[in-house]
């Protein structure tokens, strides 16, 4: 990212953030959270707890009503449009609703973040093939993404999130439609990225992926952290 984060400063800093959807739906209430660079964090809680809302705020899809959010040392509330785009280029996001393009092929979907950065064709090919191999999707790389099952689409979304070797990965329910074996593959990929220094925040209610983990787990309940 263009600004370096001081060693002792959190990579992601959420300070007393409140988000209210009209008319009076409190999605997050005075939540504070710090995530260090290179940390993997599990954000847990039932459906409707506010996990997706927090993910959206972190990637500037929305703005909080109150509070401060800093990502890589930058106050997201003060960023201009071009700066938000620059920030997003360094964040890999696996959305709960996938947000892939059904008419584009699997390969094209995964390649998109790299094309945005004008990466050379060979580099894109190598990286996309590597990710699809890791998630056992290579045999479907030329298929339109719309023809895949939900589980396969989810894997495409995850591969796309990891394509650019991002500094931060935000994954919203990444194993929601996956069986245990594929879920393990996904977590292996996340662990690989984390091993390369990537900060990862995984929002999930699937306890099987964080049971017994050494990584930090924080729980959201009705928009509040339950520590």
């Amino acid at each position, binding site marked *: 990212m263009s600004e370096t984060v001081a060693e002792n400063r959190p990579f992601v800093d959420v300070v007393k953030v409140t988000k209210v959807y009209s008319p009076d739906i409190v999605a997050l209430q005075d939540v504070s959270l710090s995530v260090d660079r290179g940390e993997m964090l599990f954000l847990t809680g039932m459906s409707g707890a506010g996990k997706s809302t927090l993910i959206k705020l972190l*990637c500037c*899809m929305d703005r909080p009503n109150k509070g401060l959010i800093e990502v890589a040392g930058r106050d997201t509330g003060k960023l201009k*449009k*071009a700066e938000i*785009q*620059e*920030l*997003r*280029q*360094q*964040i890999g*996001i696996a959305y709960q609703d996938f*947000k*892939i*393009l059904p008419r*584009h092929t699997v390969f094209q979907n995964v390649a*998109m*973040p790299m*094309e*945005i950065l*004008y990466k*050379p064709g060979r580099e894109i090919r190598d990286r996309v093939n590597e990710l699809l191999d890791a998630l056992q999707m290579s045999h479907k790389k030329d298929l339109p993404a719309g023809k895949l099952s939900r589980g396969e689409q989810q894997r495409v979304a995850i591969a*796309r999130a990891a394509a650019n070797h991002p500094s931060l990965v935000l994954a919203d329910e990444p194993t929601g439609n996956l069986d245990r074996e594929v879920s393990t593959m996904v977590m292996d990929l996340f662990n690989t990225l984390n091993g390369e220094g990537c900060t990862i925040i995984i929002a999930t209610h699937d306890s099987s992926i964080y049971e017994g983990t050494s990584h930090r787990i924080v729980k959201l309940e009705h928009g509040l952290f339950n520590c």
Partner: protein
Amino acid sequence: MSQFKYHLKQTWRNIGQSWGTQVMTLFTVSLSVLIFSFFLLVYVNIQVAGDRFSDELRLTVYLDHEIVPEMQPQIRKKIMEFSEVENIVFVSRKDAFDRFKKLLGRDSDVLEDLGAEIMPPSVEVYPLRDLKHLTQLKEFSDYLATLPGAQKVQYGQGWVERFGHFTALIRLIVILSGILLIMATGFMVSYTIRLTVVAKEAELEILRLLGASSPYVQTPLLIEGLLQGILGSCLGIGLLYAIYTWVQGSMTGPGFMHLFELSFFSPLTAAAIILISIAMCTGGSLIAIRKYMRI
């Protein structure tokens, strides 16, 4: 260089996804350029023809009596008091009769029993180019009518007036067709880009979420407008040239009264038309992008 390659690749993809609309736009642009260029070409050739005719333009003052040689310098001086002229020719009855016989050619035997007295003497005044304007010709004609012995002044009034009106009409059509060109190309390209933006709304949203910059998204659309301008205008000019070649081959030459030698635009003029079309199309793209895109 690789960035431009990306943009070209994306442009090609956009065109492939909406080729029907692209063809319609191309058709509209080339038709607009063709219409405008056609009338401009007609106007340019009329101007050239008009200049040629004006070289042969003369005012003929018919007199009731011949001007003796001693009086000719005085008449010359009086004529020159109005304006400098190219030439003044005094035509006697005999000269006029001889001309008439020559004009009749093989039928000149009808004049066997007639003498030169049937022909009126005249003074032919060849004006300078700056006098060829209709109002100046009219004034000059009125002045020449005051010469001693002048009965009538002729200069092809009807023809000159009609030619002037025709030229003005063509000029108006050129202006209107130019406006049509600007509006049609700008509107069609803008509409095509708008359709592209609407059709790609989901893709643009995802690109936005992935961090695509404005140039990444907008440049292919601008290139699209640019290409439509280049192809449409070249096609329009090309069609016009084909029409011109056909007209030149079929309708001009020795059998067509030697009135016209049609000429096409200079390369500079053709290039200017193409550049203006490109500017219109690219401008249309830009307007659509600014209006309909959020990135």
